[in-house]
């Protein structure tokens, strides 16, 4: 049983959803996602669940937290649900980030809502030196996250497409600006697939290892429908399901699309 205890706007069209649970099959790790049913009371539309990465987790208080942007019908409906509403939630699902590079010099590169899975990750990587490169449309979209990450002691670099912050441009360009001065041991990145592909290319070129989290359109989120297949770069060419083998993949593991 999951109950909404907060569902508030923390940036333009960006919401923070906090749920109380009574039990979970396992504690979520950074990079895990949950699949949330947004239609209520037997309405068949929207039909599918909506996947969201775990943003923060508090086992003591039995709270899971998500950050989502209102995109279409599903997130719109979600944003109008009130505190106290019981939600049908599946999770944690998927394969999380590995935390074995903990302790090194780590870069977090987030594009837009790609920031969502990185916060809980940063929390778990607290012992590492972490730098966040975050891009969004404008400053208003970034403020909530800047504060959160600064609260963890993470060094933050911000870029916006619509106005000049550190630069006027994308998280990718921002990161590249720093890459030579501050070469990381490992990177974690999430954002639009095009950005992921560019980050991956640069990282691999510079022999930097890391992991990325993809947002594939999902049917089920539990591995039964093969909607979310990613072409593998491995020898056997066996597809990987973003919802089971992913959404986190190692850099170079799967072929990133558009």
């Amino acid at each position, binding site marked *: 049983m999951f109950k909404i205890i907060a569902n508030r706007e923390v940036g333009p069209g960006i919401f923070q959803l906090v749920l109380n649970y009574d039990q979970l099959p396992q504690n979520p790790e950074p990079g895990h996602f949950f699949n949330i049913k947004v239609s209520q009371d037997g309405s*068949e539309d929207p*039909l599918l669940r909506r996947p969201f990465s775990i943003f923060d987790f508090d086992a003591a208080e039995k709270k899971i937290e998500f950050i989502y942007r209102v995109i279409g019908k599903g997130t719109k409906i979600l944003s109008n649900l009130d505190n106290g509403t019981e939600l049908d939630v599946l999770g944690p699902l998927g394969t999380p980030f590995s935390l074995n590079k903990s302790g090194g010099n780590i870069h977090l590169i987030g594009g837009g809502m790609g920031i969502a899975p990185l916060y809980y990750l940063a929390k778990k990587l607290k012992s590492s030196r972490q730098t966040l490169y975050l891009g969004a449309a404008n400053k208003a979209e970034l403020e909530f996250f800047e504060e959160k990450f600064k609260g963890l002691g993470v060094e933050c670099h911000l870029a916006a497409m619509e106005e000049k912050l550190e630069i006027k441009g994308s998280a990718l360009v921002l990161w590249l600006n720093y890459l030579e001065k501050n070469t990381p041991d490992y990177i974690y990145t999430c954002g639009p697939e095009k950005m992921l592909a560019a980050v991956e290319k640069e990282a691999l070129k510079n022999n930097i290892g890391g992991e990325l989290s993809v947002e594939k359109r999902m*049917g089920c989120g539990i591995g*039964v*429908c*093969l909607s979310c297949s990613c072409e593998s770069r491995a020898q056997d060419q066996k597809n990987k399901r973003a919802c089971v083998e992913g959404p986190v993949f190692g850099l170079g593991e799967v072929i990133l699309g558009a």
Partner: protein
Amino acid sequence: MLKEEVDSINDELTESNLNLSVVMNSQQHQQQNNLKLKNPLITASGTCGNGKELADFFDINQLGAFTTKGITVKPQTGNKTPRIAETAAGIINSIGLENPGVDSFIKDILPETKNYSLPILANISGYSQKDFITLAEKLEGRKELAGIEINLSCPNIKGGGMIFGTAPEKVYQITKKVREIYSGYIIVKLTPNITDITETALAAENAGADAVAMINTLSAMKIDIDQQKPLLANTFGGLSGPAVRPVAVRMVYQSYKKLNIPILGLGGVRSGSDVIEFMLAGATTVGIGTVNMIDPTAGPRIIGEIKEYMLKHQITNLSSIIGAAH
């Protein structure tokens, strides 16, 4: 009826003496080849993987039968993504039959099904009559299987499934060939993208199919209006989910009186009520597809809902309602 009266009847008919079992008769070998199921729920091919994933959520042996993901002769990686689009009360998929091929199916997947005590049906797809023959040959005699489901209706493959499935004579030919080779239970799965589904259903019956399954998905598409191009990489896909149920129920209803073989009805089932609707229309068994993608524990929930209906309507034997809406 007065409340006391209802209560007193309910005292007699309890959950434990409800009989949900159904029998799918066999045309060929009479009684001994009948498919006896503890309840009418059969997983729909392609929506339940090969069992493993759902087994994390509940004991799938509670279901009537399990249908595996469609297999082809050769391994296939499927269509490019996006392979799924959501529509009003429905989804369009164009998975494109991603599967490891029949040999790997026999080697890797079939052995795993040994852990299950429910009947397993293998869903087979082909691009030619020869493909179906090969598949039937390879699966003949496999003890793990209770039967096969011939998918003549996948709308996702160019020049393939769709074409066989819309021509009654092709349905007849392929079914006949497979029937000559395969001795287990044969279900022919029909496409709804057709003017008159009773023609293909009768063709399957006449060729010796033990049962027909209807419906597969409705050919459909969605356009990404911002990108101004089809949303699915494959342009077209198949519509499933609650949106299509009224069409599926109509087709089962239309076919019921014309056929002598049992119907596996499916398309858009979400709840026990929907299963009852298909059975009243004439389905002996009912497939659950898309619903599993949304509610992994749909199976046991639906069984519970069927029982509630039986108690409410004082129905001891579920099979007594098959075709009762006619």
